[in-house]
């Protein structure tokens, strides 16, 4: 299958995306956030919580004086290490009495501080590399089935039920398991700690929970002879921290969108831009595939109208991702099958949109989301809509395929629902495995014309954003009809300008060039 899309227009869209991102990137380079700094501590080996259940990284960063914070937590922490000779975790624990205040370690010269930090920085980076290599080794030994990679969610709220569900799903054919986050976790300015058994619409993303499911899936992978991937959500107020935890626990994918938090969770845009960059540098380095959230445009507004916005967002997400050093095959750009199923020729429109993304982003790990908004309590009809979604995915060669649930409109998936959903995907994709190689859309036909219209409207949308500037464009509600102001939204107080002498050893190590050389 091959559409004839206007290559010049595609080039133009990429140029526009670059122009749109450049100024934001400049802003990012001059700023940091509390969550970035907490991530530095986590990578240095700081973990655990205070008696008041405050995560230690939060405790330390919150205790920093504005001046210290402006230079990043690293210098101050380095001095403390140098003066105490303790290792990071021990050091932080020893500070409990003083409220985790690092200010009294003021003497050690910068060189000593850097020197004291160095081994732990290397340890942090090495453990990420170790997990990346572990993944590569397992994938080589336990190859996955060909894409579309079948992806299902577990969301019981209890990590142990999730573990059961995850293993069962893997045995039923799932190749990627997502543990859906307890709702609104994206709004918490800290990452909960330890295994959790109470969640709402999902299960908390904690490092312990990551480890529990990872271990169960590694075990299942061995039995199945194919590597089963694990994924979770980064987007939110703790993007970089979750990226770090995911790297350490060998998650394979992360929901990580450069604008989702802004538009759909009213998180401050500056906070989000700075956080997404550092989190994506970590994703890049740890070999984690990011998944972007364009599907959210389609669930909240008409899917036919929103197609150009989805494409525009994909171009912007791609540009931000490249700036963070992510190679194309780690960029899972999002899209979804959300056109009203009762619209005549809806299948043609869906194929046009999916194929357009495939051709514009040939190397990307496209993430294709299932029909949700138009699903109803009629599970029989819903199963059919999912079938045409599965067909579209295999015909257009999508990479990551979120399996739709017949019970989408009713409840978070039952164990049996996932089995039916996977049966659906396996049957349809096998029966139509090579249909995509077999058929060519008629030149000038409905499919081709639709693809051309979407691309053209996307280009003018990007023109508009470029002329307004991204931050202002968001304020003008260019995306998802939502308006967010640069100074509004959650987490702004956690954003700060980098003072002279600001130092983030991991950011330095992971700047695309650097990271490349370390690979």
């Amino acid at each position: 299958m091959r559409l004839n899309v206007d290559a010049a227009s595609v080039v133009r869209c990429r140029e526009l995306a670059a122009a749109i991102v450049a100024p934001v990137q400049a802003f990012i380079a001059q700023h940091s956030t509390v969550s970035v700094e907490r991530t530095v501590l986590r990578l240095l080996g700081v973990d655990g919580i205070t008696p008041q259940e405050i995560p230690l990284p939060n405790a330390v960063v919150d205790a920093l004086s504005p001046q210290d914070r402006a230079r990043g937590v690293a210098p101050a922490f380095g001095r403390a290490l140098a003066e105490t000779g303790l290792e990071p975790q021990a050091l932080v624990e020893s500070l409990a009495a003083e409220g985790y205040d690092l200010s009294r370690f003021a003497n050690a010269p910068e060189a000593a501080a850097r020197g004291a930090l160095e081994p732990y920085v290397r340890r942090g980076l090495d453990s990420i590399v170790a997990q990346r290599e572990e993944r590569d080794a397992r994938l080589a030994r336990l190859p996955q089935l060909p894409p579309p990679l079948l992806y299902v969610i577990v969301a019981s709220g209890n990590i142990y039920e999730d573990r059961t569900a995850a293993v069962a799903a893997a045995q039923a054919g799932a190749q990627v398991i997502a543990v859906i986050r307890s709702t609104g976790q994206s709004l918490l300015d800290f990452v909960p700690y330890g295994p959790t058994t109470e969640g709402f619409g999902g299960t908390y993303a904690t490092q312990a929970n990551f480890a529990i499911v990872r271990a169960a899936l590694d075990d299942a992978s061995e039995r199945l002879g194919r590597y089963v991937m694990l994924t979770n959500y980064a987007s939110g107020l703790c993007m970089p921290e979750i990226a770090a935890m995911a790297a350490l626990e060998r998650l394979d994918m992360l929901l990580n969108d450069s604008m989702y938090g802004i538009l759909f969770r009213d998180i401050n845009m500056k906070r989000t831009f700075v956080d997404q960059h550092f989190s994506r540098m970590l994703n890049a380095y740890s070999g984690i595939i990011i998944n972007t959230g364009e599907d959210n445009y389609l669930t909240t507004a008409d899917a036919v109208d929103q197609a150009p916005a989805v494409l525009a967002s994909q171009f912007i997400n791609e540009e931000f991702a490249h700036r963070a050093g992510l190679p194309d095959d780690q960029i899972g750009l999002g899209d979804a099958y959300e056109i009203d199923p009762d619209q005549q020729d809806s299948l043609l429109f869906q194929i046009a949109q999916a194929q357009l993304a495939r051709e514009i982003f040939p190397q990307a790990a496209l993430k294709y989301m299932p029909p949700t908004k138009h699903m109803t309590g009629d599970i029989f009809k819903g199963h059919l809509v999912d079938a045409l979604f599965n067909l579209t995915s295999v015909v257009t060669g999508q990479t990551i395929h979120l399996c739709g649930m017949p019970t989408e409109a009713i409840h978070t998936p039952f164990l049996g629902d996932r089995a039916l959903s996977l049966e659906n995907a396996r049957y349809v994709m096998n029966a139509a495995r090579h249909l995509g190689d077999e058929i060519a859309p008629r030149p000038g036909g409905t499919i081709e014309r639709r693809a051309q219209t979407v691309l053209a409207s996307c280009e003018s949308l990007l023109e508009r954003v470029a002329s307004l500037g991204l931050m202002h464009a968001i304020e003008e509600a260019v995306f998802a009809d939502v308006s967010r102001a640069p100074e509004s939204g959650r987490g702004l107080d956690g954003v700060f300008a980098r003072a002279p002498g600001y130092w983030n050893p991991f950011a330095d190590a992971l700047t695309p060039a650097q990271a490349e050389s370390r690979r």
Partner: protein
Amino acid sequence: MTRLVRPYGDTQNDGKVQLSFTLPLQWSEAADEAARQLVAKMGFADVQVADGRPIADGFSFFVVYAATPQSVDADAIEAPSASSHAMSLEEIDAFVHERIGRKIRVAGACIGTDAHTVGIDAILNMKGYKGDYGLERYREFETFNLGSQVAVEELAAYAKERRIDALLASQAVTQKGSDIKNFTALGELLEAEGVRDNIVLICGGPRVTNLLASELGYDAGFGRGTLPSQVAAYIAITLASRFRSGGAHW
């Protein structure tokens, strides 16, 4: 007069029902038999395990057909719909203008921690739903859309202070009965504030029925596929009758 009805397979009163479920058992012929016995225990006759198969280690899935001896008296069922009186936008505006003589103040929100605004927006926003315009489009309605994750306290206070005529609460998330809890809390707060009677209190959401609404002490409830005009008509007519009968209102 009573009219007993039973499920209909291909013959009156054959009582045929389809079931499916997962059992935490490794599949085997014995698992099929377990499924058969389970459905028999539920009180079904003529149990046929049409399909039983393993879906994972220790889990099997079953499709069963069976006949139920149960029946319900269709004539004894009380479930008045709130969407009965169909009127067009123009008719409703005219009706309000004539019978109420002032704009109706409507406020709506998706309450609790629920962030599903698409439903309430479909009722309130200009754009409306399935080609049926939302309340904002009506000349005689003044609408306030408070958006999502609105605490019930906030909404109750707002209603009292703005002297809202019709209050619309939405819930899409029903896990662990969170919808019932939130709806109930809102009703009680309005009672406590002593403004309940002045307000046409309406709830809605995919799982809401008018019957559930009345059980919750609401004036009406609207579920799947509701059209804005149905809600507008209900509000207009209910409020008009309160005005006429001298019932409580602002």
